């Protein structure tokens, strides 16, 4: 195909230099490959990258005050929030104009919700003043003070000045039980309002316990799966996979039927005389319920990676270890177990990350004490409608998962992971 020309450059039959031709061919095949994965990339972009980007931007976005109180924000530029004096009449006039306009185009609803997150009472302050400002005449200071006493308090004005930037840290601070004091310093919220730190911690330690339990329960099963004769191991595999194919909701509600105080297990125990009828075990709607149900539900995610690794360990290794004089436990610990570590690692990280993000099961069987941080993300999305806070909590969760992944990668190496 190629020949050497006088100048020493290799060319193809049609005279194009070989290098160029090669490069073209590679480019063409790369382009084809890209076309093949394009649908997936597009899907990932729309369904994964964009929502995450949206979430991250929502967790710091603060458009309400700068947009709907633009005149007031401009007028507050020159006001010194530490001066101890209320802003001047022109600021009050700007506020009255902003509120009247906001009332007209129905923008003050969002504004009042936003400010009420920071300070109780701001909702009615904004709504009432918005109504009043439509017909307000100068002097505006008196008019606004008459509409609501909040406009005579320094904190209100400091709050507006503080939240006048289009970005805010308030949501992230709230997500870790902190807030900005009126003076602008970061402080802890009152003890009777602290909730998220404990919830993050609980989510992590309970996920850890669940991961450990799936490992303890799943390891022998995976071993059996890998080592039993084919007929028996196939049956066992079906037993592992059947629950895996059953709906998550069905499996969760089945646990309710089994574990509740009037449930199957308690009834049996009472019938057998193990416990008295009025001392039934409380096994559900608490931490125990969450741990039991989630361990069961996540078990296949541990068994399958373990199985795929164990399948590749030749049984001759153990025979060799035994024939070289190793006691059963020693040969297991020194030979077999180290070979299963990639499987343990894969199963562990899979179960742990899945359980950190679990939401339906803790909501149904977790009661009060078995709830995860994810249940509060759902709560802020659906009930309290504080989407900024929901985004901030979710972002923190995302960062933590990424950190776990990086640590895992450092210690074990993602390339060693086998998923089946």
């Amino acid at each position: 195909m190629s020949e050497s020309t006088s100048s020493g450059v290799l060319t193809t039959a049609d005279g194009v230099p070989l290098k160029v031709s090669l490069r073209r061919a590679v480019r063409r095949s790369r382009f084809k490959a890209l076309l093949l994965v394009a649908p997936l990339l597009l899907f990932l972009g729309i369904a994964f990258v964009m929502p995450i980007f949206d979430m991250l931007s929502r967790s710091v976005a603060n458009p309400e005050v700068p947009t709907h109180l633009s005149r007031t924000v401009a007028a507050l530029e020159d006001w010194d929030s530490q001066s101890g004096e209320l802003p001047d009449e022109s600021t009050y006039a700007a506020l009255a104009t902003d509120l009247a306009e906001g009332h007209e185009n129905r923008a003050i609803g969002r504004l009042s919700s936003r400010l009420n997150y920071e300070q109780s009472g701001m909702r009615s302050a904004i709504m009432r003043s918005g109504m009043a400002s439509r017909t307000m005449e100068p002097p505006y200071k008196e008019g606004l003070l008459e509409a609501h006493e909040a406009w005579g308090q320094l904190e209100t004005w400091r709050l507006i000045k503080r939240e006048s930037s289009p970005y805010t840290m308030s949501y992230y601070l709230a997500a870790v039980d902190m807030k900005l004091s009126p003076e602008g310093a970061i402080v802890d919220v009152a003890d009777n309002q602290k909730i998220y730190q404990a919830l993050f911690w609980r989510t992590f330690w309970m996920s850890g316990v669940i991961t450990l339990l799936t490992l303890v329960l799943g390891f022998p099963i995976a071993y059996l799966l890998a080592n039993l004769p084919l007929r028996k191991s196939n049956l066992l595999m079906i037993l592992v996979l059947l629950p895996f194919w059953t709906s998550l909701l069905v499996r969760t509600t089945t646990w309710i039927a089994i574990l509740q105080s009037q449930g199957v297990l308690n009834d049996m125990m009472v019938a057998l005389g193990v416990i008295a009828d009025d001392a039934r075990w409380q096994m559900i709607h608490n931490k125990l319920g969450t741990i039991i149900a989630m361990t069961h539900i996540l078990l296949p995610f541990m068994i399958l990676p373990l199985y795929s690794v164990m399948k590749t360990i030749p049984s001759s290794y153990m025979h060799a270890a035994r024939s070289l004089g190793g006691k059963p436990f020693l040969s297991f610990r020194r030979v077999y177990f180290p070979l299963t570590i990639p499987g343990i690692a894969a199963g562990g990280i899979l179960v742990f990350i899945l359980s950190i993000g679990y939401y339906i099961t803790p909501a149904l069987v977790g009661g009060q004490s078995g709830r995860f941080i994810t249940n509060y993300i759902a709560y802020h999305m659906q009930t309290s409608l504080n989407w900024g806070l929901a985004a901030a909590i979710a972002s923190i969760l995302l960062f933590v998962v990424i950190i776990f992944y990086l640590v895992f990668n450092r210690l074990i190496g993602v390339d060693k992971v086998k998923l089946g």
Partner: protein
Amino acid sequence: MFKKSMLHHAILACSGVSVLGMAAIVQAEELNVVSWGGAYSMSQQKAYHDPWMEKTGDEIINIDRSGNALAGLRSQFEAGNVTWDLVDMLPADAMIACAEGLLEPIDHDAMLADAPDGTPPSEDFVEGSLSECFIPQIVYSNIVAFNTEMFPEDDQPDSIEDVFDLENYPGKRALIRKPINNLEWALVADGVAPEDVYDVLETEEGVQRAFDKLDTIKDEVIWWEEGSQPPQLLADQEVAFGSAYNGRIFNAMVSEDQPFEIIWDAQVFELDGWVVPAGKLDKVEDFLYWATDTQRLADQAKYISYGPARESSNALVSTHAETGIEMETHMPTYPANFETAIPKNDPFWADNNDELTRRFNAWLAQ
């Protein structure tokens, strides 16, 4: 003609004779109505939806999402795809949604039917109940009910204090997973007069007092989130007491013969009604005009023990449609039930709900 009910329709569509059904849908309107589900949606179905579908051939689709109606509306507007045509909502949520521009403003006198004697709607509806975007339907009440089988016949509980009295009335309590109602009841049980409850709650000491009182029963409480849960928990005897919407308990009592009793003491009552998502007025105004007239509101009270929001409907309220019992004594507004009633204070909760809910959640998680 063959459109008797949604079920009928579903059967038609499923069984493959859908051609006829589809043709009918195309010429008639399809209305997505969001409501609370359970016994309450059933009462609306029978009083409003079925007769309306019979009359016009419209198709009314029930969506049980009122528990999260405000969030649903917001996300639909955010996504630019509003599929709900009419929403059943609490007045406090309606006020917020209205201020956010999610709802159509309503001119009550121009858009709703007069009473039979010609009284305009603005005078016929319960005083102070009409707000800019809100059309009230019913007066309902939050009450505590109990299962009579769980207490001796000669010592049945009858006040809110008894709900907080674990010694004389032991057993689990099902309460709503919100500060609303619970804080009010805790104060009443602690000796505050029903009419002073919100004055006390305005102060930090008052809130602390309410939480302290709730602390005394915290270990015995199962917290519920859906209105259908407390009747179920009571029927299963998982709890002895359950806070609930009075109509759901009524429904369980008369239609399912459950041995429940309502404690009317310190009932917290409020309104519930319709709102129209912005841009949907043309689609629903005919239905709205018809479904909120005097007769229709009175009809709904045949199926569930919620008081009609129109004065003129009250005279038409008679007996329960299925069992024939007199509805009057089961209504929240019946004088004997109403003596210690607390009107829910919307402005208070509009301002303080964020903070008190934070505190309530933190208290729950402790």
